Every structure is written in C-alpha cells, then in structure tokens.
C-alpha cells in the first residue's frame, strides 16, 4: 500500500511539468494570499512591538485619575512633589528620586509620504531623563540643554517627518526650536517623538504643570507598594500604571483593527485561491484520467490515488506559501511606517515579519491546498475505470 502510494505520487509529480500552467495557478494564487496575510499581520506585530514591548516592568507612569492618556492628563507641581516622596522609587547618589515629570504636547510636522502636517509628540522631560530612561542613546549630535529652545529627535521620527535632521528648526508658538541631536531608545514609541526640557516646553505653551510623571522603581515587585501609597493619599487623585501596561492599552485597539482587517482580507482571498486550486486539481485529475484508470486496472488501490492527488496539491500550495512569505519578508520586513496611534499622536514603527507569522502563513497555505485538493482527489479515486480507459 505504501509502495503503491510512493509509486503513484512519484508518477504524478513527474508529469507535473506537463501541467505547468494549471499548477502555477495554485502556486501564484496561494503566494498572493500568504504575502498579503503576512505583510498585514507584520504591520500589527510591528506596531505592538513598538508600543507594548518597549516599557520596562520596573518603570511606572502616573497620570491624573480619570485621564486615559498623557495628552488629556494634568498634574500640578505639588502633585509631582508628593509623588517623588512615595516609597519604592529608585534614588540617585544624592538621594533624589528617579522621577521625570513630563509635559506632552503636539507639533505639526509634515510627513514625507503624504506631504501634509502630522501630529508629532513634543515631550518635555525632566532632568532625570537619562537615569529614568537608560536605554536612551544619542546617536548623532548632542543632548538638548535646558532653558534654551533645543530638542532631540527620535530616530524613527527623523525618517518619517521632514526637517528633523540635526540643525533643523521646528516652529512652535512664535519661536524656533533647534534639533541638536538624534536618539534611539530600543525602537520603542519614544523614537517617534521629540524630547526637550520640560520647563522650557511648559513656558512655551504657557502651561504650568505636567501631563505625567515617569518613575523608576527599585524593582518590579515594588509596584503595588508604590501604587497603594499614591492612590490612598487623600491629597492626590492619580492613576498609577506600569509603563508596559499603559502602552499595551494604548496599542490594543489599533493592533486589533489591523489584525481583523488583515485576516478578513486574507480569508476572502483564500476563498478565491481555493476555487483556483480546485480548478487546477480537477483539470490535473482530468488530464491524468487515463493514467489513473490504468493504474486502478492493474491493481492500484483508491487510497494511494487519492493521496497522490492530495500530496500534489499540498506540495504546490506549500511552495506558494513559502514564496508568499518570502516576498513579504523581502519587501516589507523592517519597512518603516507611521500612523496615528492611540491618542492623537504619530507612532513610527517597523513592519516585523516574525517567525510565527511565517509559520501562520504557511499553515494557511497548506489548509487552502488541502481543501482545494480534497474534492478532486475524491473524484480521482472514484473514477470509473472502464469508462476512463475507453475515453481515449
């Protein structure tokens, strides 16, 4: 039986080149489905990676209670003073808490691809910036100085928006700000932003207060102690979240939307490709009608015939899946794009074709191939031998 299977399958694969037209329909159709599926999901994966994987477990973000994002939050100076004395915060050598009070505002900067203005985050950051965010590295130029209108631009933002190279000028409320440096920070969301001194930003936008406070804890386990201390303080009305959870919540909606849209489009395409596969395999079976009938006549079983058709469909779709995933990887892996993220601001991220996505794509390809091969295989197995032989 197994020998029969090998013999029939080898035979069907040997005749494959004669049916190259019909076979390529399966390969190309499935490659298209997988390429689209993997590329779109890579967008979701990249966006999630940028927002949700960026935060550290021992870093916290404090917002005014009831505000769900930094942009709508508001903390006073006295709020920040109270927060800086809370237990669990890491301290520097002189005993000062590692807490960066931040002020988030938006500036209009034109985007390269559309040419129209986009909301880029200008984040005023406290003096403890480099200690609170040790992953931040200046890769070009130098750090901004406090009290003068200078800012540093994230490496992602520089690629997506116009005029952010070192020496570039950003206009905000009647004054020019100079870009003095470009930074990276583990390709997290801050690479989409512009950073400057918080008090200089505050005086520029006439805001006396902050949007949020970012603190570094002595360890991730300190979180509940720190949170409880702040939320039970009657002088404060704040929400305390781990940074990672805050950004995960910010990215949830868009990541979900991308996945739903990507999968819907891919399912529709997959149905189309399945009809294509059915067509090709039916015509393959028809073309091999005599051959199959002859095999059956000399004693080959129905099952080896059925399996040989299935194997052919599966191999072709596997090839299509691999080509599709490879195309997605080749063209889009690492491709940098930006969109309006959770809460009004541009987020720059890279499409990430992960190994898991490639596996997903190839599984889809195999499922399409299996369904597309099944019915033609059944027909091949049930072919009435005498009739098929006579059809010559």
């Amino acid at each position, binding site marked *: 039986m197994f020998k029969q299977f090998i013999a029939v399958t080898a035979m069907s694969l040997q005749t494959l080149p004669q049916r190259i*037209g019909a076979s*390529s*329909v399966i390969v*190309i*159709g499935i*490659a*298209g489905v997988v*390429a*689209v599926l993997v*590329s*779109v999901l890579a967008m979701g994966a990249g966006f999630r990676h940028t927002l949700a994987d960026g935060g550290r477990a021992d870093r916290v973000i404090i917002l*005014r*209670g*009831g*505000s*769900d*994002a930094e*942009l*709508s939050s*508001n903390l006073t100076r006295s709020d920040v003073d109270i927060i800086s004395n809370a237990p669990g915060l890491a301290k520097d050598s002189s005993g000062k808490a590692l807490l960066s009070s931040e002020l988030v*505002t*938006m*500036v*209009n900067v034109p*985007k390269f*691809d*559309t040419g*129209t*203005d*986009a*909301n880029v985050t*200008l984040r005023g950051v406290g003096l403890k910036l480099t200690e609170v965010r040790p992953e931040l590295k200046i890769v070009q130029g130098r750090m901004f100085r406090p009290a003068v209108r200078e800012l540093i631009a994230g490496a992602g933002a520089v690629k997506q928006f116009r005029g952010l190279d070192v020496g570039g000028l950003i*206009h*905000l*409320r*009647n004054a020019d700000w100079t870009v003095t440096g470009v930074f990276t920070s583990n390709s997290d969301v801050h690479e989409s932003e512009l950073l400057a001194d918080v008090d200089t930003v505050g005086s520029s*936008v006439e805001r006396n207060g902050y949007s949020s406070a970012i603190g570094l804890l002595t360890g991730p386990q300190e979180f509940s102690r720190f949170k409880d201390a702040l939320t039970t303080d009657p002088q404060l*009305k704040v929400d305390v979240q781990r940074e990672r959870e805050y950004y995960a919540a910010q990215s949830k909606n868009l990541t979900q*939307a991308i996945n*739903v*849209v990507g999968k819907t*489009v891919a399912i*529709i*395409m997959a*149905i*189309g*490709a399945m*009809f*294509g596969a*059915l*067509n*090709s395999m*039916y*015509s393959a079976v028809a073309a091999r009608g005599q051959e199959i009938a002859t095999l059956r006549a000399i004693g080959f079983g129905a099952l080896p015939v059925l399996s040989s058709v299935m194997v052919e469909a599966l191999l072709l779709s596997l090839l299509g899946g691999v080509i599709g995933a490879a195309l997605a990887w080749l063209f889009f892996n690492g491709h940098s*794009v*930006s*969109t*309006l993220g959770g809460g*009004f601001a*541009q987020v720059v991220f890279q499409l990430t074709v992960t190994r898991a996505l490639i596996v997903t794509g190839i599984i889809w390809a195999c499922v399409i191939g299996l369904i597309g091969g099944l019915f033609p295989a059944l027909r091949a197995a049930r072919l009435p031998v005498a009739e098929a032989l006579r059809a010559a």
Partner: protein
Amino acid sequence: MKFFPLIWATLWRKKTRTIFTLLSVVIAFLLFGMLEIVDNAFSHPSTGVTGADKLITTNKYSLTLPLPLADVQQIRSVPGVAEVTWISWFGGYYQESKNFVFALPVDTDSYFNLHKGEFVVSDRQMQAYRNTRTGALVNSALMKKFGWKIGDKVPLHSTIWTKKDDGSLDWTFDIVGTIDVKDPTQASAQAYTFVFHYELFDEGRSFGKGQVAWFEERVGDPSQSGAISGRIDALFANSPNETKTQPANDFTLAFIKQYGDIGFVLRAILGAVFFALLFLTGNTMMQSVRERIPELAVLKTLGFGDGKVLMLVLAESLLLCMIAAVIGLALSYAALPIIKMGLQGVELSPTALIPGVGVAVLLALIVGAAPALRAMRLNIVDALADKR
C-alpha cells in the same frame, strides 16, 4: 448579438471549471469593491455637516494648543466671514472609555446660525435647550445606543476637564431633545453628536477658561475661501497664537492622512489579487480554447473569418469577467453596512464601484488576448486533424 447563444454555450462547456473560475473572479471583485469603497472613504472623506462654505481655524503649530476666545471678535470683522463659532474638545465617554461620545460644547446662537438648515431640531426642543442651562441635544442614534430618553439626566466623563466646584471629571447633562442631520448621507458621520452649552462648560471647568480648540467660519462665497483664510491668519501673524485657517474639507483630509498612506496598502493588496487572477483566468481561457480547436476549425470551415473567431473568443472572456465582476461588485455593495460598522464616522459612497467595470473589461481583454489570437491563427487543415 445573434452569436450570444453560441458564446453562452461555449462558456458552459465545462461547467465545473467555469463555475470555479467565475467564483474566483467574483471573490476578486468583491475584494476590489470593498477596498475601493474604503479607499474612497479615506481619500474623499465626508466632512460631516461642514460643506464647501466652511473654514476651520486652528493653532498654526499644534492642534492641541488652544486659541483665545477673544480672537472671535477680530475674525467676525473679516470681510467675507458670514458667521463664526468656537468649539472646545471635551474628550467625553459614557460610563466606560469604549463608549465614546463626540460631545462638543457649542455657543448656541453662532453654532446654529452657522449650520442653518443643516440640523433637524424641533422648535419646541430648541426652545427647551435654550432654556435649560445643563441641557444637551443628542443624536437619535446615540440615544438609542445607550438607551437614553428625552428628560434623562446623563453623566459624561471628560478625560480632559475637571470641574471647578468639586474637582471631578464627571459632568451631568439633561437631555432635552434630539439633533439629527438633514442630509442622510451624513447620518453615520454624525452619529456621535452630543452638543451642550459652551457657557456651562466654560464656567464649570477648573482651568483653561476663555480658551477654545478651534474656530469654525462660514463664508458667503466659497470661491473666496483662500483669500478669506489668508486674511484671518494675517490677523494673528506674529502673535503668540498664530492661526492656520483652511477649508473644513482640507482639515478633515489632512487629519485622515495622518493614518498613513492607506491607499498604497490597498493598492498593494489589489495588485497581488489581480496578478494571481490574471494567471487563473488566463489559464482557464487557454484550456478552453485548446479543447475546442477542432470546433473552432469547423466554424472556420463554415465560413467564419479569422476576425470573427477572434471576436468570439474575446467575447467569451468578456462575458465571463463581466458576469463575475457584476456579481462581485454587487456583493461588495451589499457588504457596505458591514464596512460602515468598522469605519465609524467615515462616509462611504457606492460610486467608488464604477471603476470596477473598467477593470473587468481590461482583465477580459488581457486574459482573452492570447487564446483569441491563437484561435484566429488556426490553420483549418491542421486544426481539423487536431494537430496542435
């Protein structure tokens, strides 16, 4: 036309193959239709009730920076400006953050004068709204969504504004009436509307008093929009609050463009779909002609000219693609309500489907060309002998 039965018969010569091919093409056009609708929605966004005669003035450097309300006096005096109103963000939701409500504090007189004839509000409810300080007019779809009735007291949570009196973020309103748009094509874009008194808002908030998020102007002559925008912006040039005035349509378009080059993504997907489709349909047509070579030879023997045979094959290809395209596009039109659920606030137009017919013709010609030429060049003697 008299050849239609012949073409029809050859089309269904191999039923399974034709049906599967047809279904693939239907799927491709369903996708084409859906993505075209979405692309159209993003590239020609609905601007809600703001027609061509509306301008929007925002802070020049940032959408999030406020403008002083006092600017309104100067804007009103600009020649060509018929009416100006001011609005602030509220960032509202009902009970849970997923229950977004597009709540806007508006100045009653100027807002309703500016949008004269665009909203449907009964006179009695309008009067009640004017008489109720905490009154709110709510879109009827939104009322239905949350089960609100006229006379209800509803709390809205603002993510931005704390109240002066108790420092909380929860504002309570009395629903006194419904506000709907006259233009039915704008209905879904306006489905979250909730307007309330600017006076209540400005007096009640604990900070930001006298500051607005944007001004909206109605101009007498839309062809003068550019010049009027320039005049408004000139008023505030070199002030701490420089402005940027643009037609409301451009403002919306620029905002939507911030989501990125969605058109590119959609075109890339469609490119992949139609590339695969060319092979699939092309293969079907090729097979179909190959199988009929003796028949085509008979036709030629009967006196059909080369050109006629070419046309017959092309017509078959055209018929196949058109049937499928029409079904596919019709299905995507049927899917419109589903797309609308996913793209709230974006208007979708079925006219986006028209290019699909052109694409179907193009597809038919491309995939039909090779087999049709082959049929045309057939040599009768060889073909009758079925020598390929």
